[in-house]
Structures are given as structure tokens and as C-alpha cells.
């Protein structure tokens, strides 16, 4: 340890106010704090009232992201091998998945860090650890067949417009990873939704195609017409409840498995990083909205109305969104009671968008971004209430 300390101490003068590499000071600082505890206090959120500091705090999020990432790699590989007629043994599948997913992750980190370092150098603030999380979250929300340059454009938009123009980590209104995804969704709709983007063929495919047509459970459900029963439609194409829960179906890379997201959510809550109030609120929101819609279901009505609410929890990206995106400590409200409202509204909006808007098969991205917008207002309302009570008590 002493030796590493000496290396940093001897190099520090080059990166300080008058040194020759002062532009790169944030880079130096980021490397140093990988090894040593920084001797400074932060001035803006996320504040951590714990023996964790921000860098260690973000490490827990990375740890919690391991289950969906590993499963995502496996599932992407499996879907790809199956669609292109390759062998389905574990090593081939995993290798194929890694070939598709790892380049996306690397592009996301490389491009995102480029912008981080650029802004950190120009505005003289330290490189934020938050990007370690954003850079991994972003590719996990993408369809596996998305071209690498689009991933680069998306993460650039997320980091620059979603975060840096507001002043960097802690001041962003929206979750940067979701902002990047929303940008891609509206800029290149054909590459981000539809039936042909969810399975990537990869470079070893026998046929020379980029993507193979294969619909997600949500897309299959949209095919159901009035009078149909969505559960049986899904059953017919092989999407049983167990399969939906475990996540072995085409979808965005990290978002298919509700089980892995549940494991991640438990790690986050136990580590004190994510708020259990938001997650529980979101699940309640989905469940109650689903039950209320069930009351209006009938043979003439939209078949979505009759869907049992737990299907909404295990299909599509809801589990991933509520566990990792909605609990982002920067863009979620900071006060305890309104976190319930925030989570509940995300759940409700997700179901409403899925049920009533066939143009957007998945609603969780819109729901979270929309509620991010309201989180300062929710905080404000709770503070107002608390202050009012305090004056009455005096």
C-alpha cells in the first residue's frame, strides 16, 4: 500500500493547479480514489449517511447488476443460437452471447467515459462514479441487435444532454441511462422496437442477417383481439408463467428475467442503496391497477384488461426498471413518504401505457422518465407538510 501511495504522491504535482497535466486532474483523482479514501466532502446528492461513500455505494449497484448481466449474456446467446440453428450447449451459447453483449458494454463505457472526462476536465469537477453504473445500465436496456454506433449516439445523448448540461451527477433531472434509451427509441424507432430487433444473429450466424424476427411476450399479447385470452395466447407460443419469471424469452438484454432483477433488488435494498419503498410502491401500483382493470374486463373489451396483474410484473422490462432505474437516488424523490407515491405512480403508468397504448408495447421507460420529472415536486410537497406540522406543534 505504501508503494502505491508513493507513486501517487510523486505524480500528484503534475496534476495540480500549476502542473503540466492539470487538465487531466479528474482522471488522476478518479484513479487515486480507486485505491484510497478521498479526503473531501461532497456538496450535492446522492448523499450517503452511512459508512459507505459514493464510490463504494456505486460498487454495490454494479454488484447487484451482475445477475441480470450474466443472465442477459446467456439469454441473448441462447436466443441467437436457437434462431440461427447453432448448437445449444452452454459454452457455445455463452460465447455467442458475450460476442453480442460485450461490444455494446465496451462501446457504452468508452464513449461515456470520453464525455465524462471531457466535461470533468473543462468544468474542473471530479469524474463521477455514477457513470460506472450508467454505462452498464444503458446497454442492458437495449435490444441485442442494436448497431454499435447507435449505442454510442445514445449514450452520448444520455450523458451530455441527460446529465452534464444540468451540471453533472447529482443535478440531473432524468436518469441518464433511460434518457439515452428514450433518445434512441424516438430517433431510430425501427431499431428499438418491433419484431425483428430482439434477437441478434451475431457474427457466427450461418445466414447473413443482422437480426432474426422474433416477438417479445408483450408483442404477442398485443396480437390478441377482443375475446381472446392473453394467457392462452402466450401459452400457445411457449411463454408460460415460469418461463416469463425466469426470463428465457426475447427482449432487451438485461431486462427479461424477473428473478435476476429480484435478486438484484434484494442486494440493493440490503446494502441500503435502493429504497424498498419505491420498489414496493411500484409493485403495489402494478398490482392494484391490474386488479382495477380486471373489473372492467369483458368479452367485448380490450383483452389486456383481463390479464392477471402478476403477468405485468414478470413480462417485459418492468422488473428491471423498478429495481435499477426507478431507485436511482438522484432522480427519485429523497423524502420517505412520497417515495411510495412515486413508485406507485410508476407502476400505474406502466400498466396504463401497456394496456391502452398499442403504439408503445412497453411503458416502463416512459413511466419512469415521467415520474422523474415529478420527483422535485413530490419532495417539495412533503417538506411543506412537514413544516406545517412543525409550526402547529410549537
Amino acid at each position, binding site marked *: 500500500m505504501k508503494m502505491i501511495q508513493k507513486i501517487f504522491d510523486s505524480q500528484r504535482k503534475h496534476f495540480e493547479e500549476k502542473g503540466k497535466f492539470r487538465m487531466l486532474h479528474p482522471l488522476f483523482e478518479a484513479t487515486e480514489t480507486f485505491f484510497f479514501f478521498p479526503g473531501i466532502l461532497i456538496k450535492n446528492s446522492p448523499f450517503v449517511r452511512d459508512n459507505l461513500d459514493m464510490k463504494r455505494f456505486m460498487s454495490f449497484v454494479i454488484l447487484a447488476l451482475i445477475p441480470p448481466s450474466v443472465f442477459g449474456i446467456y439469454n441473448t446467446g441462447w436466443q441467437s443460437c436457437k434462431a440461427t440453428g447453432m448448437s445449444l450447449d452452454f459454452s457455445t451459447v455463452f460465447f455467442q452471447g458475450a460476442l453480442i453483449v460485450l461490444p455494446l458494454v465496451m462501446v457504452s463505457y468508452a464513449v461515456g467515459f470520453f464525455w465524462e472526462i471531457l466535461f470533468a476536465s473543462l468544468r474542473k469537477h471530479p469524474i463521477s462514479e455514477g457513470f460506472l453504473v450508467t454505462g452498464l445500465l444503458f446497454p442492458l436496456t437495449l435490444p441485442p441487435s442494436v448497431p454499435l454506433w447507435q449505442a454510442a*449516439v445514445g449514450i452520448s445523448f444520455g450523458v451530455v*444532454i441527460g446529465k452534464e*448540461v444540468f451540471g453533472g451527477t447529482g443535478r440531473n433531472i432524468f436518469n441518464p441511462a433511460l434518457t439515452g434509451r428514450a*433518445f434512441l427509441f*424516438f*430517433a*431510430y424507432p425501427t431499431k428499438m422496437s418491433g419484431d425483428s430487433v430482439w434477437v441478434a444473429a451475431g457474427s457466427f450466424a450461418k445466414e447473413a442477417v443482422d437480426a432474426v424476427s422474433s416477438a417479445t411476450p408483450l408483442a404477442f399479447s398485443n396480437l390478441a383481439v377482443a375475446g381472446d385470452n392473453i394467457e392462452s395466447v402466450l401459452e400457445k407460443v411457449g411463454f408460460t408463467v415460469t418461463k416469463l419469471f425466469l426470463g428465457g424469452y426475447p427482449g432487451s438484454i438485461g431486462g427479461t428475467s424477473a428473478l435476476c432483477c429480484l435478486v438484484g433488488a434484494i442486494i440493493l435494498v440490503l446494502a441500503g442503496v435502493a429504497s424498498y419503498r419505491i420498489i414496493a410502491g411500484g409493485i403495489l401500483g402494478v398490482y392494484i391497477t391490474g386488479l382495477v382493470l380486471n373489473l372492467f374486463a369483458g368479452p367485448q373489451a380490450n383483452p389486456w384488461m383481463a390479464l392477471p396483474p402478476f403477468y405485468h410484473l414478470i413480462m417485459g422490462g418492468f422488473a428491471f426498471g423498478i429495481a435499477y432505474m426507478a431507485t436511482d437516488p438522484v432522480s427519485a424523490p429523497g423524502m420517505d413518504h412520497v417515495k411510495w407515491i412515486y413508485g406507485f405512480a410508476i407502476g400505474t403508468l406502466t400498466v396504463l401505457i401497456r394496456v391502452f397504448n398499442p403504439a408503445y408495447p412497453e411503458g416502463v421507460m416512459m413511466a419512469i422518465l415521467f415520474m422523474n420529472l415529478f420527483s422535485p415536486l413530490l419532495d417539495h410537497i412533503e417538506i411543506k407538510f412537514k413544516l406545517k406540522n412543525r409550526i402547529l406543534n410549537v
Partner: protein
Amino acid sequence: MAKSIVQEFTKGLWEELPPFRLVLGLCPVLGVTTSMENGLGMGVATTFVLACSNILVSLLRNIIPPKVRIACFIIIIASFVIVVEHLLQAYAYPLFLKLGVFIPLIVVNCIVLGRAEAFASKNGIASSTADGMGIGIGFTLSLGALGAFREILGKGSLTIWGDLGYNLTSVFPSFQPFEFMVQAPGAFIGLGLMLCAINAIGD
């Protein structure tokens, strides 16, 4: 206030560049800049109204009673807007269709009323004309620039007037435009980025 006529003209081109320095008249800036052609056309129409109303307000500035001056300015501006609307219908009908409701809305563009109130009603005819022309040309250039920016990113083309223009996708076939930029959110993002650039360049 002792500026020469040339200074009155040039201040509109940078110092008081309407949408970016004064941050006025944002409605057409956000609404019509889906292509460079639309931006320039809107800018030229506004310049005409701005210059003509500045001249007339400046001529009548000693006759108009101060208490009803705003109403009088609006009548003057509205007359010129009708003139420009008929001119567009007669000579540039496709552009008129594209700009649509934004042409009558020049009446309520705060730049036009703002220059009448803040400048033309207090200054002589020569400097008022220079001011109107300068601000108008600055407005046209800003709209054209924002329109070009959005059109290049959003459609991959650049139309200057009618059929005159470039199709960038034929030059760079691998460039894929994102339609997002010609829709409403693209206007706000484009305006924000241009404001950022203008502020970064500074005086």
C-alpha cells in the same frame, strides 16, 4: 444613445441577436425551424414586417397618444402582416402552406412589438430603419441556422429554397438521420445547444 446608423444595424447581428441574445420571439424559432427553407422564409417575412412597422411607428411617433400607443402599434404591425401574407400567397404559395398559422402569428411576435415600443417610438426614421433591418436579418440568420441544424440531423438534407438544396444522405450513404430532431423535442434541444454555443463564444 449616440450610436451611428451602421452601429444600429450591426447590433442586431450579434450583440442583440434576437433569439439567442435577447431570447425573444421564441415561438416561431421553435415552431417553424423544421427545415432551413422554412426558417429563412419565416425570417424574411418577419424582417419585412419589422422594418416597415419600425418606419411607420417612427414617422408617427409624435402623433400617437402615449396612452393608446400599444393598440396603435399592433394595428400598424397587423397591417403589414396582412401585406406579407398576401405577398406569400401570391409569390411563394408552397412556403405559405408550410408556414401556415405562424404567418398571422407574426403580429404577436414580441420582437416586432418590442422594437416598436423600445426603439422606433423614441428614435428618428433613419436609425429605426437600420434597427429594424439589423434585428430582422439577425433573426433570419438565427432561424436559418437552427433550421439547417435540425434539418441536417433530422432529415439528412438541406433545402435552401424550393428544389435548391442538398441531399446529404446521397453524399454520405451511411449517415442515418434521426427524425427526432425535426419533431418538437428537437427544437428545444437544438435551441439549447445553439444558445450554449453562442454564450460560449461570448462578446
